[in-house]
């Protein structure tokens, strides 16, 4: 009975967070967060600085351990799974501050998830296939000319693209983009947004964490708002922005 229920839920929700709680010492970073993301969705996650957005991502991806609650992904309980195991299940993330492998060329940066995630899923590929795939991914984000360069040669926007390309290389079902656009110019933001939309159209579910409201509003089909570790709103972007509680949190 329980099993049947689980599989029924798995059909609708790709990611499900139940009553998740996380504290650092006496500080409650997240309190009773429940959240579900359906397959193919474009979800925006917003909240003021320090509201717990990145902590939530870290709990979902296994970088931090949550004391309370549970995370299910694709019908599987994630508790106790290490970060790399979750990536192999199809849960990818990009980091708020790009974290490239600094001693490796761009193409080798992309190669890592292919070697360790895609190959580990049992879809064996020849070295040549992997090379082609790396080149394709770099082409997709417009970095093919710098394939042999080191990350230190990149500009800020290129660094963000590399971060996204590396997350995409693991062929995820769900991509969590943690502030992929912070510090970018208007046109650079458009570039990244177009990239994410294209990815979503290919069937990847995307959770976008962002401060830049213009980007969030144009991208998201649904919006979730975190304030001081609690979820205060969840729904249509326009409705959420009209919510008096959200207005109060943002405008003081």
């Amino acid at each position, binding site marked *: 009975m329980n099993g049947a229920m689980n599989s029924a839920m798995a059909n609708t929700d790709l990611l499900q967070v139940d009553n998740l709680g996380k504290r650092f010492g006496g500080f409650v970073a997240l309190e009773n967060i429940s959240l579900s993301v359906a397959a193919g969705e474009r979800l925006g996650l917003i909240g003021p600085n320090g509201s717990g957005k990145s902590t939530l991502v870290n709990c979902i991806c296994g970088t931090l351990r949550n004391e309370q609650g549970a995370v299910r992904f694709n019908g599987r309980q994630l508790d106790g799974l290490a970060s*790399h195991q979750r990536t192999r299940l199809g849960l990818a993330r990009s980091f708020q501050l790009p974290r490239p*492998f600094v001693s490796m060329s761009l193409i080798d940066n992309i190669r*890592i998830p292919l*070697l360790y995630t895609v190959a580990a899923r049992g879809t064996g590929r020849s070295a040549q296939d992997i090379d082609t795939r790396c080149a394709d991914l770099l082409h997709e984000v417009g970095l093919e000319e710098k394939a042999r360069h080191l990350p230190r040669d990149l500009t800020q926007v290129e660094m963000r693209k590399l971060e996204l390309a590396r997350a995409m290389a693991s062929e995820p079902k769900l991509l969590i983009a943690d502030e992929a656009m*912070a510090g970018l110019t208007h046109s650079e933001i458009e570039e990244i947004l177009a990239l994410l939309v294209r990815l979503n159209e290919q069937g990847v579910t995307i959770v976008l964490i962002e401060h830049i409201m213009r980007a969030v509003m144009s991208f998201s089909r649904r919006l979730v708002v975190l304030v001081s570790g609690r979820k205060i709103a969840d729904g249509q972007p326009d409705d959420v922005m009209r919510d008096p509680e959200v207005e109060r949190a943002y405008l003081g």
Partner: protein
Amino acid sequence: MRTPTFLLICLVIAAVVFTGSLAVGNDYVFFAGYVVLQYVVLSTAWNILGGYCGYVNFGTAAFFALGAYSTVAIYKLTTGDDSYSISIPIPVLMLVGGAVSGVVGFGMGYLTLRLRGAFFSIATLALAVVLETLVVNWDYVGGSRGAYVIRPEEIALIGNYIRYLFLIMMLLAVAAITVARLIEHSRLGYGFATIRDDELAAEACGVPTLRLKLIATTISGALMGMAGAPFPYYISYLQPDSTFALDYAVNSIAMPLIGGTTSWVGPLIGTLLLGSLQQIATVTISSAVNLLLVGCLLVAFVIVAPNGIIGLVHTYLQRKPEEFVGRRRVDADAPEAVP
């Protein structure tokens, strides 16, 4: 180059070096060469964990001594008194020493790899101190008095026993270099490099960092133990003070740093350079000058060539004008847009 071809070339070079040393006609060449080769193994082994993964191990002496004392223990066991005496071939002793050190390497990794940076290094240093204390208080292997191991005078076909030890250490060096090169060009090597660069990002890319670090500590420890196993036969009188000497730790760090840590070539070049210099200094000046030599060279390299000789060659070969223009600084702390 494929690994069998590489191995063949190494063996040919080894054969040339061995016949060349025979041609000198003085067995001192083998005594000095043995030490250099031993350091080739130690620095290559250190580099697998320290250079590839970025975990600085100060416990080289501990793993080396584990190999050496495994041999002493087996020696005591097999030549207990005059009633019986079996001589175990050195390659077998190497396998045993390697196994013991590999197991300890695995254990050390399991206990300490959640530590990073200086904390990991301090833990490895502590391992050396703990093991030395154990050995000093273990009478069976000689305790603080030390242990005698009688080296056979001659061995069939080759002649003087030191030539045999030299040959074996050379083969081990070839094996160590081949293993290091194999790792470097494999999936494992890529994984090790991600650990050195950024463990959090590595995990996010699906790299099982803890498992890879355990593989690295085990391989590295095992190779160090194998290098230590023939040592009692070389030195004849094994004593805790000299077996756990700081020299092993310092040299096996300095040699890869001087050569370059990102490739198997680095430790090899660094060892040939520094190891030979030390041997020459021992004969011409005094053995006490060795550490001074290491210190001065290390300071010089940190200032002039922080990426070692390999890094120096790389920058010389890859210097392109485009590298110096149009590079924008990547600012991690760029101000973020606030809604």
